[in-house]
């Protein structure tokens, strides 16, 4: 419900507050997320580093292969950034797409002090270059862990239309922390995949309320998989990123062990639940069935109250 103010007359901060992260393109997200004018792209579209595979399938290419990487500033401090374009082939990982993110993470590992923001928007691996894509996922996961081991904070921001699925879900699981909005979804197998493999009785992918309460931003926040929940604006994600950069601590074996304990606890507590609403109820939420309808501010208050994120884990 934003006023129809035209771009030209709006200040960047105002635009960031009124622009839906979910709806914005990858480039628009970066432009409004970072300090005004601070973004510098690596391997930009003019270099035409396109997929070597799509041509074989007679499919159109995109000059940036669906991911924008570069550096910029956040409240004056340098950050490395990668943003997936969820509308180009569902934001899927291909060879070049993946290599750009690996390169960014390895650079971060070498520099050691500059954090990385990954703006996920992906359905997983690109089918047309599946082998290269799967390898890319493995390389990215390794690169994330190596960067974190070197002291780099790697923050995932999830609120795009393609969600964060497949290998994207695995990579998100490796990050230091995640911020998510209501339309954001995080999972490995997507709704259609589950329905195809296990039947519509197991999961009706057309029941979108079910999809969101199982994989959506609110559930991921309540489950502790995402650390911060934000309203769906670019400014909201900017604030969330700043907050996470502030609270994320160093990474090491203790933290990994704590994460293992957290996950085992979670499975023990909720493993028998049939539906997300059962989990929310078990977490002590009165009227859990109303959670999907809660406005962002009320939900954030509720989630902060439940407090299911552990600073020691991940």
């Amino acid at each position, binding site marked *: *419900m*934003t*006023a*129809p*103010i*035209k*771009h030209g007359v709006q200040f960047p901060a105002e635009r960031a507050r*009124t*622009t*839906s992260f*979910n*709806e914005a393109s990858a480039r628009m997200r970066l432009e409004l997320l970072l300090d005004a004018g601070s973004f510098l792209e690596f391997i930009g579209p003019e270099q035409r580093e396109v997929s070597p595979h799509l041509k074989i399938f007679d499919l159109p290419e995109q000059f940036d292969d669906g991911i924008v990487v570069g550096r910029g500033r956040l409240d004056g401090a340098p950050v490395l950034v990668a943003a997936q374009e969820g509308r180009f082939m569902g934001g899927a990982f291909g060879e070049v797409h993946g290599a750009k993110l690996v390169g960014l993470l390895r650079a971060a590992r070498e520099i050691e002090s500059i954090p990385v923001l990954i703006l996920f928007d992906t359905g997983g691996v690109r089918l047309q270059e599946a082998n290269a894509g799967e390898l890319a996922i493995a390389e990215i996961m390794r690169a994330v862990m190596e960067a974190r081991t070197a002291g780099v904070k790697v923050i995932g921001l999830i609120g795009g239309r393609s969600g964060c699925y497949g290998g994207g879900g695995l990579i998100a699981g490796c990050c230091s922390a995640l911020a998510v909005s*209501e*339309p954001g979804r995080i999972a490995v197998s997507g709704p259609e995949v589950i329905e195809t493999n296990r039947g519509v009785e197991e999961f009706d992918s*057309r*029941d*979108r*309320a*079910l999809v*969101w309460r199982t994989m*959506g931003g*609110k559930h991921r926040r309540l489950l502790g998989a995402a650390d911060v929940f934000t309203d769906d604006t670019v400014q909201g994600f900017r604030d969330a990123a700043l907050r996470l950069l502030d609270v994320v601590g160093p990474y090491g074996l203790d933290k990994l062990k704590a994460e293992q304990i957290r996950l085992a606890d979670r499975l023990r507590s909720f493993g028998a639940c049939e539906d997300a609403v059962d989990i929310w109820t078990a977490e002590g939420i009165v009227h859990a069935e109303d959670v*999907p*309808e809660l*406005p962002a501010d009320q939900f954030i208050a509720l989630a902060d109250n439940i407090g299911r994120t552990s600073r020691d884990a991940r």
Partner: protein
Amino acid sequence: MLMSIDAETRTTAATWQRHREARDARIEAGSRLARGKIVEARDATRLMEAVIRPGDRVCLEGDNQKQADLLSGALLAVDLAKVHDLHMVQSGVVLPEHLDLFDHGVAKKLDYAYSGPQSARIARMLFGGKIELGAVHTYLELFARYFIDLTPHVALIAAVSADREGNLYTGPNTEDTPTVVEATAFKDGVVIAQVNEIVDRVPRVDIPADRVHFIVKSEKPFFVEPLFTRDPAAITEGQILTAMLAIKGIYAPYGVQRLNHGIGFSTAAIELLLPTFGEKLGLKGKIATHFALNPHPALIPAIEAGWVQQIHSFGSEVGMDDYIRARSDIYFTGPDGSLRSNRAFCQTAGLYACDMFIGSTLQIDLQGNSSTVTTSRIAGFGGAPNMGADARGRRHPSEPWLKAGSEADPDSPAALRRGRKLVVQIGETFGDKNVPLFVEKLDALELAEKLKLELAPIMIYGDDVTHIVTEEGIANLLLCRNAHEREQAIRGVAGYTDVGRRRDRNAVELLRQRGVIRRPEDLGINPLDADRSMLAARSIKDLVRWSGGLYAPPSKFRNW
């Protein structure tokens, strides 16, 4: 002339109530399966066999949205030795069962108005001779024939609840029910209702008990399709541009206050631009105040922003019930608070009391004839032709009607000049999969030739169309003085379609100088300003927020 009354005519006179007697016999046969008026669902097929005779005209309530699905299933299961060769008279052919009836031989002949989801199969069955087609109607036209030459012997209808007497509550989706029942019950027909529940007292009486003969309680609620929900997230910049052109180039200059909108994305864009773009133009209160319209969720922001004063509806829309109930200043509601819709009245309202219809179509030819028929699909007409037609019986004046009339016929004396309804076709020059909106010859003509129909299925005739709006601009056909000008005006807004590229550039330029064609720049609109940030709501979630949480969209539209 003096007539002698002989014994023979007196015998005939004695049988002047044979329809009533036949009806009573049918009810008598059905009553053996009923307790009072109530028949168990498992006996529904036996009920059909008891009250329906071979060759009967049967109205199986298939509306635009509400479907008597239990009764259609029961009818499909009848013993063909007892029931066959029925003549189905129904406005909507929507469920697969509606056509299965013809495949099985239960029914033979069909008169209908709309076939949305079954449009491809109905075309195949017509080609295959499985269906003997009476005619494809508009809603009002079919309703009219219910009272003249297509009166049902049996009506199979759907309601939300019934009391034990048989009073029916049809709920927000009343739609066609009162019309069907009126025609059937008062002409010695039998009315069978499926209801979701039987209650001690219905919330309001939509159909009085003495018009209802049997009630069957269904295990699950009747099927209702959400047909009027357009997700703002899917509205394109092109649709926003055409919507801006329509608001500034038609709504504003004619001062259109009373209108009907089609169900496409372009009109949804208009609804969502009223509180933003329309507000900036200072049009609030001057346009779009009274609607004949289903409860479109996309209109919520305009309602909340105080644009809309009153809406009468053909049917309801899934998820809008609580919102409507809370906004009874705007909608027609019963003493129970829920929406009362009525298709026949709303169609009449759209025909006579609205100054504009604006909607999309699939094909427009060089005369401005438009059709949603393609060679493989017969979607029917529904209500658009009633909305999108000049009402020759109209006599009350209004500013837009008089202005349109004077543009069409500037030379007649004003007091003798008819006004004109604004009939606006809005769309992008290319539709899905790059299919052009403008064609030299309508597919409908080809279909009519193939099926040997006497009439091509034209949705809106060219002589009723007053304006065509595309991203290229507005063509005002009222200002065209001959067929050549009209053709060039249409070509002039047909963009890069074959029709558009074959325009006579000089003729089009002359038409533009006369204001027959108005480009975006002629209206002070920069196409680059057509931006999604102008929409009052950009997602279904935004609509929920505008409604204060009262709108509860169906699951398939959610992303939360």
